[in-house]
């Protein structure tokens, strides 16, 4: 780390190669802005070569020019304990962030940046996400030096030791390294339902088109009925199902490896540094005091393989749903021991599963009504209106069995575990998730009851945190009210900040 003595008090520019990254951004924006025109011109009958040439020229030259101007006008420096960024070509913008407001400094790299050996520095502040700052093109050493300079104050405030001793690349022994084997295991065992649904929808729509095509183009009815005899049809269906299964596996595997390749968790001062990704490398810092909720999930296969999926939800901004997703970090494929170490670090102590609360059996009735009776009767009514598509009704028995099984297992797994220090909500039919949160992270509580539930004294409870909501129900309403009172008492008496 020889470059740590860069003088940040002087206005700095990004690396010259930043022009290309700025250009790429500007180019992307131009294409997006001109997209309707491009589409219209491609669809129009009169194709004039010169027109394309001019458009392409404008986009390219304009993009380059803007990239360069943006690069020229993008400067930053540290003055009087404040990080100041100036940018903008016509509309000049000046952003000042007091150093002690900086929450995180992340160093990332996307594909283009990797090609150019550049890094991106992202400065995260508490408060509105609008003040988030990204510097798109600096060298590795520069990024590191800037990060250390920016974090100096954070560390000073938290009265932890010298951060100069902490250099990301070299010294730390990884706290957790997710091996390729674990990724493979996670890849082939996760997200079945989602990928399967997407693929099924895809095949059904293709099949419908095929069907239409055959009925319209082929006038020889005999030919079709000969061709589509029962054995053939069965074989065909078996083949499709098999194909869907294989594709599901492959897609999940590829997705998992692309996203989580070389996943490392490093302990750094009082926080965790996560880095992962095959094409885009992402680095994220997680500070335990910002963590609102931790979700541990696994399904039957993952239990056998001893892999868990840990999701960490940090306090997010109020309105930005985009940010909410970003604040949820996933650590795939950790084994039992690693999971426990993680939980202990993030939640200060190992959460225990305490007093279990079971849902009321009416939960199943309610869900059967919502997911079986209403959709099926709607579908039935629909087929009465349009008799041509009555064939769809064959799918109903399959649907009912499938959904009923899901509802039953979801009911069996649904639990709320309570200890004085933690609330654990368990849910899911196949993928079983455990959401773990400490009572002092609660922001508000809502109890809900439909008028017909008054007689049977059941209801739902919703716990709101800055990292997401937790719902539980239907369950004994008296018990839920008691819990609400207990948690309120805890929130109002425990002198701990939620962030």
């Amino acid at each position: 780390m020889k470059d740590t003595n860069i003088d940040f008090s002087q206005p700095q520019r990004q690396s010259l190669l930043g022009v290309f990254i700025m250009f790429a951004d500007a180019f992307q924006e131009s294409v997006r802005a001109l997209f309707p025109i491009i589409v219209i011109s491609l669809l129009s009958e009169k194709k004039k070569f010169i027109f394309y040439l001019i458009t392409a020229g404008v986009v390219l030259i304009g993009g380059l020019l803007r990239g360069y101007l943006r690069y020229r006008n993008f400067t930053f420096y540290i003055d009087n304990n404040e990080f100041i960024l100036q940018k903008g070509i016509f509309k000049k913008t000046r952003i000042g962030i007091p150093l002690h407001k900086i929450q995180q400094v992340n160093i990332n790299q996307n594909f283009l940046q990797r090609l150019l050996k550049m890094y991106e520095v992202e400065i995260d502040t508490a408060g509105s996400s609008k003040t988030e700052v990204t510097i798109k093109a600096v060298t590795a050493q520069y990024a590191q030096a800037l990060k250390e300079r920016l974090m100096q104050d954070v560390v000073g405030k938290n009265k932890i030791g010298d951060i100069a001793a902490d250099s990301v690349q070299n010294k730390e022994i990884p706290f957790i390294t997710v091996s390729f084997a674990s990724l493979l295991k996670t890849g082939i065992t996760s997200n079945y339902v989602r990928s399967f649904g997407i693929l099924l929808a895809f095949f059904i729509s293709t099949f419908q088109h095929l069907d239409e095509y055959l009925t319209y183009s082929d006038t020889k009815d005999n030919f079709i009925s000969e061709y589509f005899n029962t054995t053939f049809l069965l074989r065909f269906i078996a083949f499709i199902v098999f194909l869907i299964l294989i594709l599901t596996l492959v897609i999940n595997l590829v997705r998992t490896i692309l996203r989580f390749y070389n996943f490392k968790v490093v302990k750094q001062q009082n926080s965790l540094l996560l880095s992962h990704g095959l094409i885009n490398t992402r680095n994220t810092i997680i500070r335990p005091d910002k963590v609102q909720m931790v979700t541990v999930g696994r399904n039957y296969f993952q239990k056998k393989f001893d892999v868990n999926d840990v999701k960490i939800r940090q306090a997010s901004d109020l309105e930005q749903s985009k940010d909410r997703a970003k604040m949820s970090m996933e650590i795939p494929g950790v084994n039992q021991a690693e999971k426990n170490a993680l939980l202990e670090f993030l939640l200060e102590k190992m959460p225990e599963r305490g007093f279990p609360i079971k849902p009321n059996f009416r939960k199943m009735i309610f869900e059967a009504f919502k997911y079986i009776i209403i959709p099926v009767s709607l579908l039935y009514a629909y087929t009465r209106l349009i008799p041509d598509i009555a064939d769809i009704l064959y799918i109903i028995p399959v649907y009912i069995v499938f959904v009923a099984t899901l509802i039953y297992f979801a009911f069996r797994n649904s639990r709320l575990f309570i200890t004085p220090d933690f609330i654990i909500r368990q849910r899911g039919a196949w993928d079983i998730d455990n959401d773990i949160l400490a009572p002092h992270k609660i922001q508000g509580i809502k109890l809900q009851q439909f008028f017909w539930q008054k007689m049977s004294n059941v209801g739902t409870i919703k716990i709101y945190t800055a990292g997401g909501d937790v719902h539980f129900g239907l369950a004994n309403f008296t018990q839920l009210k008691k819990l609400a009172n207990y948690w309120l008492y805890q929130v109002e008496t425990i002198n701990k900040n939620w962030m």
Partner: protein
Amino acid sequence: MEQPFSNEIIDTLALPQFEDVQLTPLHPSYLKVIWFNIALVFSIMAIAAGAGFYFINELQPYRLVISGAYIFVVILTIVINVINFKTRGFAFREHDVIYRSGAISVSTTIIPYNRVQHVAIHEGPVARWLGLATIEVFTAGGVGGDIKIPGLEKIHAAAIKQLVVGKIDSKQAEDEEDIYTAATKEQDLPEEDNNYERY
């Protein structure tokens, strides 16, 4: 706090219970605001339907059905709104605020003062004419967990705001400062920047 849960459950019985709190109903004038809103929406619908009947001949045979459905919806809306008005109630306790609302499903929301981000008061045109205001209590828990109490007398709303803000401030005096309210010094923000430059 250190005991196992089985002990705690007996403790919880001794804790103050939110369900026993006598909730204050909304100001009776607020019902007028509700009536006004219903009247406005349904008269616009009625005018549209009337115009439709007059100008589109194909609608003639469905006249009765549409009118019947309209009356049904009007009655249902009135019933739901009146029940909802009667369920609504609020209470400001020493440490938290309680708000109950709903007709088909009744929900009670409770927010402790030490989790409140900020409080806002606003007045709609009709409510202002009647001297009423709405108070909103925001937390970091997202939109679903916020409380919005309509139909308060203006003076009452202002007093409540004073009370809650006072509670937050005294809390803050103890712990340094609130991160959200004292967020970064933001000058000109970069968000709109891109739109200006786009061509």
